[in-house]
């Protein structure tokens, strides 16, 4: 039952989903469906978030205290759980973003050594 990989789509990097979720919630409270949609849209559909990873990630982040949740009524006029960034969550987002840009920087230097030495 192996899935045929979609050549158009990028596999999400291990450990970056949490950061994407935190980032998305910076705009304000949202439900799981909306978070998934937002990430896809912002990546021009190149990143697709599996619900099977999205919801465990949301619950994990909530458990760590970076998110909090409350029930509300969605656009589909149905009960839905809205997630919201907490203060520690905001701090975590800043940390992750720094780490991410560092990583990108380092990776870039290794992958394109010429660009690195010129600086």
């Amino acid at each position: 039952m192996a899935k045929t990989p979609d050549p158009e789509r990028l596999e999400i990097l291990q450990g970056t989903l949490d950061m994407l979720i935190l980032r998305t919630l910076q705009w304000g409270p949202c439900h799981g469906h909306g978070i998934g949609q937002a990430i896809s849209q912002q990546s021009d559909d190149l990143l697709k978030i599996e619900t099977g990873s999205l919801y465990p990630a949301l619950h994990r982040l909530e458990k760590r205290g970076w998110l909090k949740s409350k029930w509300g009524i969605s656009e589909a006029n149905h009960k839905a759980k809205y997630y919201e960034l907490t203060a520690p969550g905001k701090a975590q987002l800043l940390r992750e973003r720094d780490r991410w840009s560092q990583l990108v920087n380092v990776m870039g230097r290794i992958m394109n050594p010429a660009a690195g030495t010129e600086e």
Partner: protein
Amino acid sequence: MRPEDRELDDEIRGHLALEVQQRIDRGEDPETARLNALRQFGYVPRMREEMRRVWYSRWFDMAEALVQEMRVGLRSLLRAKGLAATVVITLALGIGANAAIFSVVRGVLMRPLVNRGEDLLVYIGEAKQAGGVEETTFSVPEVKDFRAGVPSIEKFGEFSTIDFTMNGLGEPRVVHAGVVNGEFFDVMGLKPALGRLIEPSDDGLNAAGVAVLTYRFWTNTFNSDPSVIGKVIRLDKGNATVIGVLEPSIPYPAETEIIANMIASPHHMGAMMITLRVHRMTQLFGRLKPEAALESVRAELNTVHATMVREHPESYSKRAAQAQMNVSKLRDQIAAPARTILLLLLAAAGIVFIIACSNVANLILARSVRREGELAVRAALGASKGALRRTLLAESLVLCGAGAALGVLLARPMMSLVAQFAARFSVRALEVTVDSTLLWVGVSLAMIAAVLLAYVPKLPASGSSTAPSLASGSIRITPGTNRRLRVFATTQIAFSFVMLAGAATLLATLISMQTAQTGLDMRQVLVADLPAPSLGLATEQEVAFYQEMTRRIGELPGVDGVSLGATVPWRDKGLGSVAFSADGFAPANGEELPRARIRIVSSGFFEVLGVPMYAGRDFNAGDRRDSEPVVIVTKSFADRMFAGGDAINRKMWWVDPFFGPKPTPRRIIGIVSDVDDQNVVRGSVMAVYHPLPQFGMAGRLFVHASGDPYALVPSIARIVRSMSATQPFERAKTLEDVRTEVLAPQRINAFVSIGFAGVALLIAVVGVAGVLAFGVSARTREFGVRLAIGSTPADLLKGVLSEGVVIVSIGIAAGAAFGYAFAGIAASYFDSMRMPGVGSLLGAAGVLVSAAVAASLMPAARASRVDVLQALRSE
């Protein structure tokens, strides 16, 4: 469904609703939109699984880590098989012994009885007086008074024991019987297994004699044959119909084979039984009214008792008049005698467990020191203290788990051994079965041990002086570790010494009892039960019958002498001690009359048993029923009553209501050496021997054989049978074997305590050997250096050996001090507590020292064989 699951469902539904809405907005028709949304969402159960790991992540992490650690632990233990095996066996012994004894303690002391409504069942007796014996039986007139005066007890059950010669059911034989009133079984809450039990309609003079068989007797002797019901049996001279079989129940208040109603026992219908207030042979039980409190019952009993003493002063001795009545739950009464011994056993098992644990702690400590390098490396790589502790915990869990499993297996046979032992003190132990508590006790002990053991080794302090351990792979033994190892080893020796000294004391007691001088010819005298028909005075014909029987036995080849008596030494309880007075004896003011044992013998008795006569003559054919009453007394009797004078031809008489108001004076015609037929270790004995025709009946045969006494048994049995088909002839034994038989309890005591001490010793020796072996392997380099600079291997050998001896000596000293203090405390609780003799102490110390030297030999030899070059190169 848990709330988390319900919430997740709601969340999923919310997600799907949004997705469907979106797709419909995009122009899909509702049905397709729903299907697509579901397809896109993915497999829900897998997500739920995933969520669980998030929700319960702590538990998942811990369990996973522990399983991982345990796998690692198992592998590393498999590399140290010797150590693992020692630890597992040591723990198994400790846990097994504890679980076994705990099960018995629980079964005997804490479990309710099977009897219906056992909560209302009480036992009535006198309260124990300081230093005295309490009366546990009552006479028929006393029982009548209690019935009338104690309203809090709804019903009374009466039980008395008597032996009958039973005919009409198999071989003629003596049966132990209980005689009960009609309410007894109702009070005790027992049911029949077959037929019916004795009922109130079986009371009274017009009832017919009936008997109930106990379950064990029915199954063992009659192979559970239901046709025994309705048979008529002869009990002594009366008839009784077998009406039923009692359900299996604990043999209480006495181990009996049949239980009969009053009318079936001629003795119980006799005038003496019914009218004599001092003829006390009935044990009394009661069923309380549901609202009655024990306190109020006790008060009522005491009121009745006080009235009885006031109205019948002649029937109560000074002691009996002062006695207080006691009433206790039957359950407690049955368990009471076993309490002390079980608690002692529990203490012994506890000590074994302490020794086992300290030994295991020792081995684990030694092992963890060897692993200091490994732990230091892990600490340096960032493993937290918690992680290291978890490694240790996982390993000790594996060890203790294996130990507990083996221990639970061991516990079953150990428990049946302990139960048999405890059954001698409380019949309840017979019904103890292995229950699940055994398992739980074992497992919880193992868990306690595992956690304790995981905290024994010291972890490398994070960040500090890990450098030396990292620098070399070899073992560095720190003074602290060494001290701890020695403390554990010393503890084991100390406790082992306490147990060995205890066992040695019991063994010494047993040996001294087994070999004590009894003043009797132990090997050549054959004794047998030849029960006489009744307790009353024998008729002329009966006396003639037994005289003829002894005459014919005396003519058998190989028989030196034959006589009759009433008491087989040690095996029979005898007739008891009775107050008496004698010529010229005036008791000092307030002094109670002296007491002497009543014994009945035929002529030739003393010669057959090898008892020397000091003065006077033996009984002879001239001492008939109608001739002058005569007696023979023991040396102690003569010395006490006629100090310095000659006792011969003086007179003595029994002073007891039993003998009527006008005592018969009896002339003393002989003095014999003291014979103590109640205690295996002889004390001075006041006893008065009566000639058979003048006093009751004698039902014991004594034969002095010139050759093998047992060779005579078949011919004697033939003579008895040919003279009377209904005369039982049973339990033929030499005196030596009777003594061995009655000492069986002491032997079991000694056996059990030696078993415990042996286990303790074994564990302690393993412990000492382990400590020394560890020390030697840690000091290989040091030994190499010492050899290199001129020490001889013999010096090293001596050094290690003396180290072992030092550990043992300190342990023995500590054990002696602890034991002395403990014995002092114990002595204030248990009357029979005895301090061990010097011999036993020295013996125990000797065993320990030689065991320790033997244990040190192997490591010492290894130290002396250290290869200098290799040792120096090892770092």
